[in-house]
């Protein structure tokens, strides 16, 4: 019996030790330069992560709350890590790639358990806002190391400056927004293509010299969108016989940019908080929400939620939508890698204006150092490497336009290889001049709650034909005011 007791104790202890062992999440791939690829990952435990490996200082790079989770991106990132580790013998860079679905929770848990990484990214404003206040101010390190920031325009750098004067980010990637359009659907409808050049003050003309000639604004989008929307019987949305419950082709969609603060901002940049801390939704946003609700449920030229679900979520790629307002990052997904869904059907057009103003939402991704890092100098050395030497391979993998203009040509050449039909990438470059200021992702107190409140109304917009926005918007503002007050510092 004693022997059995001993066996039971040993088994119990082994189970406890195994269970309490290093954090080995199935979603996390941790790789050093010596072991590249997901086939042979080296997983570091929380306890050892901060320990130097040999004489080197270990710097942890957390990827997942923005781009970087796709296999081809992981490959590029692992190669960068390998090259960095081979290039010097002071720092060991360790990358942790976490699935985006669990990245926020994973990072939050690491921070709360006092086991944070040193660097996170690439991450946009939205992702950064979730961890607002936890980033290291880079300005002292820029000054002490003499890091050359002249590779970026001054205003691009200032775009990262916080209201308190700190500079927690430096430019890396930018994703301007514009219109993707389906050439075949325009040809089929006998409509001229949307304009590809911004006119004076950004205002362009559509269909010059044709019966459709007019200012390229959102009224024009609605007009030609209705012609491009077709039901199962072949009636377009201008016909009295058009059946909006059985639409097979649509004129326009906000492609993955339909969060209310995103789509609203395309009609004019604004900040939904007044000086006194209460919510105040910009009028241009309200106008746009009503316009899009009518596009879905009135005219019927934009798909509602169930139709988006039926299209598999990627509406424009399905070939059933003529125009999509979205960002440069959408080049990720206009075709699949096996070319089963070829991406040769589209080209780019400039963003329409609203009341004489063009606004193109801008997404800017970068890497950030957490203020909790024990090795700020080494972390900044890694950050510098990622922003300069490693920028091009990373930007190409992320499908992001370089903030460093010297890299632009190479970047678009790589996109031409992917989309050889001759896409007019100049549209993307020109659109950057009309970026939204303030950003639609400008930080607000209780950012995640703010997004959730906005999303609730957005889901009504896409699912409820009878939604009374005049009543819903004051309700939203009351909710937002409560959120701002609750989270005010």
């Amino acid at each position: 019996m004693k022997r059995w007791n001993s066996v039971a104790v040993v088994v119990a202890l082994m189970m406890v030790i195994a269970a309490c062992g290093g954090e080995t999440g199935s979603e996390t791939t941790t790789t050093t330069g010596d072991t590249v690829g997901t086939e042979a990952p080296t997983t570091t435990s929380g306890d050892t992560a901060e320990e130097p490996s040999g004489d080197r200082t270990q710097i942890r790079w957390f990827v997942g709350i923005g781009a970087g989770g796709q296999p081809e991106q992981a490959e590029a990132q692992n190669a960068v890590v390998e090259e960095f580790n081979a290039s010097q013998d002071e720092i060991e860079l360790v990358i942790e790639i976490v699935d985006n679905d669990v990245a926020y929770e994973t990072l939050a848990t690491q921070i709360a358990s006092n086991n944070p990484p040193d660097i996170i990214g690439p991450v946009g404003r939205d992702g950064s806002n979730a961890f607002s206040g936890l980033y290291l101010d880079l300005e002292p390190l820029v000054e002490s190391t003499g890091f050359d920031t002249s590779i970026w325009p001054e205003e691009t750098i200032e775009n990262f400056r916080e209201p308190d004067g700190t500079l927690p980010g430096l430019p890396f990637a930018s994703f301007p927004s514009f219109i993707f359009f389906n050439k075949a659907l325009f040809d089929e409808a006998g409509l001229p293509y949307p304009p590809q050049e911004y006119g004076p003050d950004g205002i362009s003309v559509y269909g010059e010299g044709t019966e459709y000639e007019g200012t390229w604004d959102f009224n024009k989008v609605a007009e030609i969108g209705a012609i491009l929307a077709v039901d199962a019987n072949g009636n377009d949305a201008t016909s009295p016989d058009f059946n909006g419950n059985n639409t097979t082709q649509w004129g326009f969609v906000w492609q993955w940019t339909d969060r209310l603060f995103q789509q609203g901002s395309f009609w004019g940049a604004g900040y939904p908080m007044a000086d006194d801390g209460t919510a105040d939704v910009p009028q241009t946003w309200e106008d746009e929400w009503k316009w899009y609700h009518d596009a879905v449920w009135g005219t019927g030229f934009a798909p509602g939620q169930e139709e988006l679900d039926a299209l598999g979520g990627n509406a424009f790629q399905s070939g059933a939508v003529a125009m999509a307002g979205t960002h440069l990052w959408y080049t990720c997904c206009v075709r699949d890698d096996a070319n089963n869904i070829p991406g040769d059907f589209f080209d780019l057009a400039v963003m329409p204006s609203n009341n004489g103003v063009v606004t193109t939402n801008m997404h800017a991704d970068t890497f950030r150092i957490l203020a909790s890092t024990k090795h700020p100098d080494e972390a900044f050395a890694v950050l510098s490497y990622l922003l300069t030497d490693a920028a091009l391979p990373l930007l190409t993998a992320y499908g992001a336009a370089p903030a460093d203009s010297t890299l632009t040509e190479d970047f678009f050449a790589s996109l031409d290889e992917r989309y050889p039909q001759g896409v007019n990438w100049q549209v993307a470059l020109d659109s950057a001049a009309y970026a939204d200021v303030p950003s639609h992702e400008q930080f607000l107190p209780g950012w995640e709650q703010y997004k959730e409140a906005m999303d609730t109304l957005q889901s009504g917009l896409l699912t409820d034909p009878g939604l009374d926005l005049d009543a819903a918007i004051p309700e939203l503002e009351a909710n937002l005011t409560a959120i701002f007050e609750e989270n005010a510092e």
Partner: protein
Amino acid sequence: MAVPAITGKGAAKHPAAPFLPAKKTLAQRRGRAGLWFVMPWIVGFLLWYAIPMMASLWFSFTDFNLVSNEPTEFIGLDNWAKLFSDPEVRASVLVTARFGVIALPVAVLFPMGLAYLLVKKNLKGRETFRALFFMPSIIPFVAAVLIFGGVMNSQIGWVNKILELVGIDGPRWFLDKTYVYPALVFIGLWGVGNAMIIFIASMNSVPSTLYDAAKIDGASEWQSFRHVTLPLISPIIFYNLVIALIGLFNYFVVPFVLYNGSGDPGGATNFYALYFFRVGFQFFNMGYAATLAWALFVAAIAITGLLFWSAKYWVHYEYGRS
């Protein structure tokens, strides 16, 4: 007679020495060995249930936030006060209750009805039907929910296509407040196989002599069911009701998969468990999330306790309660 004291070397060798500890009985020795065998479970229970539960109780009195750079502070009953004034809590409790009014009876009656049909001796292919009705419950529920999302999509789903064939304009099942609860309950029927099997087992255990006696007394089929079957399977009804009730409190997977937790349509699927998830894992407000979790736990205990109390009035234990 007094037992002489044994001292010196002999003491250790003398098994019957009265001043030595009494030797453990066989049952005690086996009990101790058993304790070692269940030790992994006990350790696991302490590490992953008991201690985290106590920790979460403590969190509910703090402003613990995963991404805050401020130190966590004790805030007394603030979270609990907020719980009672939070309109989202009120709304999500109402949503859960409204759904429960439809879902709970169906969760018990549907498998019971199926089981009643499938124990009929004159049903041809009875075993095949049992297997067919049980098989869906072994398919991962998330996959089933995704499939139903397509099947009942008003644009492309075949449910509406079939309705269209007979001239009915099918509703927007998941996006219309009128139809969303029936649609969710319909999805729930996918997993009734387990409850059905338990009902079949309990119905088969009803002595046939009771049915024979009822038949001799002139009881109809309905009367036999009402006065013989129903009382004797009432403990199983009770069991399935408790399980369904706990499932209702934790109702999360279907609305989360179908609507990505958005609460569509118009907040109609903003269930309590979803709200708890959002507070904890989207807003990272662990202090308040812990409060929500504990409130759910207390409510579940209270209502389950109420059910147990009511059992003495309607649950029939043939051989008394064990």
